[in-house]
């Protein structure tokens, strides 16, 4: 008599990681092929560049978010940081600050926000969930106070023109993904700090007892997340030509979902850079496809929500098996 066979225990290693990446890539291509046949508008230059631009911003957010999630934390504030920073750069440009300096100053704001998050989490011992949720609502509030609810338009065409431009036929915004992803890859997979991020996500106490400066690495993770979000804020301001602190609502969930679809474990210590990249374009394709198929846009939110539940459920299963 055979009782049910135990499933073989798979361990995440490089092989499985590549396998997951290929599966996601296959899924993405499959969705593109289906949409290309199902709708007349999907495979048009206009739509593809649109998809690339939208996906790029979520991809950069997701990469930053991944650093935090690998340490076993979460950053719920990234959407608010995007909105706040789009406002910040619009204000700076309105004061005739040179573009380069305005971008650097905006990224510095992101750095400050990340420092603040890490301070609350490391020094005050607040749960990351609470700390970043609180700053989500506070940042939107500060932004609304500063602008009094008004939208600030950007008149510098050089600035806004960049987002519409391209290089080698690829939208500039997509190049920006590589600008972030390549250093991020080296940091996460090829540097000791990347190793420490994983170690902390797996067992912070063991990492500490092995001489890892756990506090500094947690600071690093939250700063990276916020700086990536600030960068996306700059890109968003370029793309829509306005600054408004209420922009990018709900993008934190898209970033988290992208990261998790890409194989990052919400329980920490598992994740990559290519995963959230693929995840964000899958998510963006779902939203884009839903639009083209004339699905009520409210459905997109429901789909995103359900997707998160399903994926986190499987993530939990994966953890239990070990």
């Amino acid at each position, binding site marked *: 008599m055979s009782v049910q066979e135990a499933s073989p225990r798979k*361990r995440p290693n490089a092989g499985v990681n590549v396998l997951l990446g290929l599966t996601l890539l296959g899924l993405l291509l499959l969705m593109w092929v289906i949409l290309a046949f199902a709708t007349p508008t999907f495979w048009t230059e206009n739509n593809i560049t649109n998809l690339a631009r939208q996906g790029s911003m979520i991809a950069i957010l997701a990469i930053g978010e991944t650093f935090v999630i690998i340490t076993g934390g979460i950053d719920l504030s990234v959407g608010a940081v995007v909105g706040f920073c789009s406002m910040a750069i619009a204000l700076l440009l309105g004061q005739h600050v040179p573009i380069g300096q305005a971008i650097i100053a905006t990224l510095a704001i992101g750095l400050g926000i990340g420092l603040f998050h890490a301070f609350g989490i490391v020094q005050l011992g607040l749960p990351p969930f609470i700390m970043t949720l609180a700053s989500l609502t506070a940042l939107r509030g500060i932004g609304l106070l500063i602008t009094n609810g008004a939208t600030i338009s950007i008149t510098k065409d050089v600035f806004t023109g960049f987002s519409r431009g391209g290089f080698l036929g690829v939208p500039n915004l997509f190049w920006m993904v590589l600008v972030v992803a390549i250093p991020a890859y080296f940091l996460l997979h090829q540097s000791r700090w990347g*190793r420490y991020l994983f170690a902390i996500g797996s067992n912070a106490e*063991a990492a500490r007892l092995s001489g890892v*400066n756990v506090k500094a690495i947690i600071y690093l993770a939250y700063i990276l997340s916020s700086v990536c979000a600030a960068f996306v804020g700059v890109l968003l301001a370029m793309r829509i030509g306005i600054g408004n602190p209420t922009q990018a609502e709900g993008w934190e969930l898209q970033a988290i979902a992208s990261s998790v679809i890409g194989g990052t474990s919400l329980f920490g210590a598992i994740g990559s850079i290519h995963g959230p990249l693929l995840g964000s374009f899958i998510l963006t394709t779902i939203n884009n496809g839903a639009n083209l198929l004339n699905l009520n846009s409210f459905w997109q939110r429901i789909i995103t929500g359900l997707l998160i539940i399903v994926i986190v459920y499987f993530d939990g299963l994966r953890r239990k098996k070990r």
Partner: protein
Amino acid sequence: MQAQSPSAAEEQGANRTGAAPLLTLEKLDKRFGATHALKAVDLSFERGEIHAIVGENGAGKSTLIKLLTGVHPRSGGEIFWEGAPVALASPPEAIGMGINAVHQEVVLCPHLTVAANLFLGDETVRFGFLQHGAMVREGQKLLDELGFDLPAAVQLSSLTIGQQQLVATARAERRGAKFLIFDEPTAYLTRTETAALFLLIRRLKAKGVTIVYISHRLEEVFELADRVSVLRDGALVGTRKISETNENDLIALMINRSIEQIYHKDKVGLGATILETKGLSGKGFEDISIRVREGEIVGLYGLIGAGRSEFVQSVFGRFPATSGEIVWRGKKVDIRSERHAMDLGIALAPESRRDQGLCLNLGVGFNINLPIFDKLSFGPLINIPSEARHAERQIKEMQIKTASRNANASSLSGGNQQKIVIAKWLNHGAKLFIFDEPTVGVDVGTKAEIYRLMGQLLHHGAGLILISSYLPEVYELADTLHIFRRGSIAASHAFKDASHETILTEAIGV
């Protein structure tokens, strides 16, 4: 389950009536994927016997428990309960039949009271309301009857791990267990607690309860058990009456290695002083003066809570000392942080490997390299080939049994996990190794390996501090032995300078 025709089952059942054992296993088999964890085990458990099961880590003891308690389904074979075949497919089914297990790691609710834990899932209720008072009274009565000196009204988490274990036992007793499995129950118990537990086990036996007792401590097996079964590599290699066997016989069955080879003590010439503490005091310890030289094992023996761990934690910079001084290789140092201690060359193999020592869901190689990633880096980037080389070399040198350096640390046995912790420090250039209970929950074979490893460290000119609550261990290994009692050193001895009895008396302080 339906594959078995009912008539065949009845026939087999009929054969067993009369003096049928309480539980019989026939060709019990378990596979996890490619791993054959349990190989056609035939075993029977009589009513009211204490049946010990021994074997090295990974011999299949845990798997056997999990099959008996319904946690895992079996891959093949039959289980008969009072002569009749049973499915035993879920934990509630096992508990319903009267099979209970007391695990090494306590599975209770730490935030509830002792009484609430005792009655969990079976609360005393009147008109829909919990009867807290009645449960505390009943619970206290039960604890008193069992001879445990424990309060029923306090929160469980305020008790020591050992005391919580006793609560778990009392709970199993309350649930009317007929078949009770103890998995390494004494690993975290003090002597008095162990004595109370043994008394309870004997009382349960007298009431006709069948006890399965799993332990690495063979002396306990000889003290308690009626019969003992030995598992090796998932197969049953023998069952003996306790009166017809001895420790050497059992160890030979378990590993083919004699007991003299376990406590392998290398004689190494003592060199310069590495660490000296002078009148060191802090939270939980007072006026501790010890010296550790190159090639020396300094044993710290005492009951749990005697201040040994607190003392070494302050040497390791975790809770800096409040007075006294530490001299490190001739220089007075003030160790304020763990980082500082590590940079000096102090390594701590913590008591709780799982909580403090390892990143379990990361690779073996990752764990080994964790303290030295800065040395494996060239500029900001890690030298990936040298990272791999280094991990491979340590795995080979320490003889860590693992599928590959990328396998998760959690997939290794306890002993091999301990080896990873030690390997971590070897190339970090540590000079002083602090081992806090290095062999708790580790089998005889791995113990021997860990002791050999300590010998290797001594040959490299390192000094060792060995904290242990297991007297034979410190007795056989320590060149200098300090006995801790209530936060201070009660006595000190040179190698085998005092008898076991003297040392025990000094530790307990009669």
